[in-house]
């Protein structure tokens, strides 16, 4: 089972049936796996705050949502995380590609990488960092934790976790 297949299997076994995505090269495999899974309604968003609105609606409509996005999105979504997801106490697993880490070829990505954990910490968002392939074993527990505590939760996944940037 690939890492992407394991992630999607955990989404399905935790009844996550509504997933919105904004693409990143590092996430291409998992987005394909989400799209291919018939138990999940995959709805691509044009911007991550829009996606969080869709997820808020899906949650209130009775389905478990999740968002897949790049860490640059943290810069886009601070207001939405605070005044929608957190203020109304809604669960939201955020599977995030952690660009700008080791093996990153694009220098500009490092600029947002250095702020990513600080921003998540400032927002009191529980944050997990997947660096080695085996770290995926915790994904199931993180999903259960997210729906237990009704919070947005970040899972940062760096290039090493994905087996390289795609080089």
């Amino acid at each position, binding site marked *: 089972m690939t890492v992407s297949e394991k992630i999607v299997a955990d989404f399905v076994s935790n009844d996550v049936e509504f997933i919105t995505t904004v693409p990143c090269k590092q996430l291409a495999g998992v987005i394909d796996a989400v799209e291919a899974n018939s138990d999940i309604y995959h709805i691509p*968003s044009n911007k991550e*705050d829009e996606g969080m*609105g869709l997820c808020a609606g899906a949650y209130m409509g009775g389905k478990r949502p999740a968002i897949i996005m790049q860490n640059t999105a943290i810069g886009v979504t601070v207001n939405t995380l605070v005044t929608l997801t957190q203020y109304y106490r809604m669960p939201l697993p955020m599977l995030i590609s952690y660009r700008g880490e080791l093996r990153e070829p694009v220098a500009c990505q490092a600029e947002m990488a250095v702020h990513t954990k600080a921003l998540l910490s400032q927002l009191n968002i529980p944050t997990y960092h997947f660096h080695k392939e085996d770290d995926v074993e915790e994904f199931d527990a993180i999903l259960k934790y997210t729906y237990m505590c009704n919070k947005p939760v970040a899972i940062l996944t760096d290039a090493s976790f994905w087996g390289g940037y795609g080089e």
Partner: protein
Amino acid sequence: MIRSDILRDIAPILRDHLVVCNIGLPSQELHLIDDQPSNFYMLGTMGLSSSIGLGVALVQDKTVISIDGDGSVLTNFGTLPTIANNVSNNYILLIIDNGSYGSTGDQPTYAGMKTSLTDVARACGCENVIECKAEDTGKTLQSAIDSKKMTIIVAKCESGNIKVPVITKDPVVIRDRFMKAVQG
């Protein structure tokens, strides 16, 4: 007619359906005119009424009406292609288009100038887009509900606000009673 006149007119229609209402004065006005547990009031996050409503509509069968404004749609323009490409026939987006940012002091929006949200929605691929005069909003909304086709309504009205109190309900209470209305 201004936005609050439209809301007063359509309140008897709205009360039978799930409603996601735009931040600021629209939510405050609807809350004052006809508070219902089936109303989800946005207390923050400008622009996401259409996205939240679409999310609710896609995962269950009850009719969902998102009340949005021209300024808020401009803020979250990416919503229109997402709506067009994820058709949910229990979903209606009602854009009350007064050509201004009402909650912040009636600054003009581009929708009141050269940009037609009706044309934009059509160009994004939305199939049932109806522009109506303020006084026709009720019958347009009712026929959209009856059609059971996803519909975007652009109701053109005058700019202007009434004095309304802010909503002091706790957000978790608003969310919880809305979710119970979904399940009810």
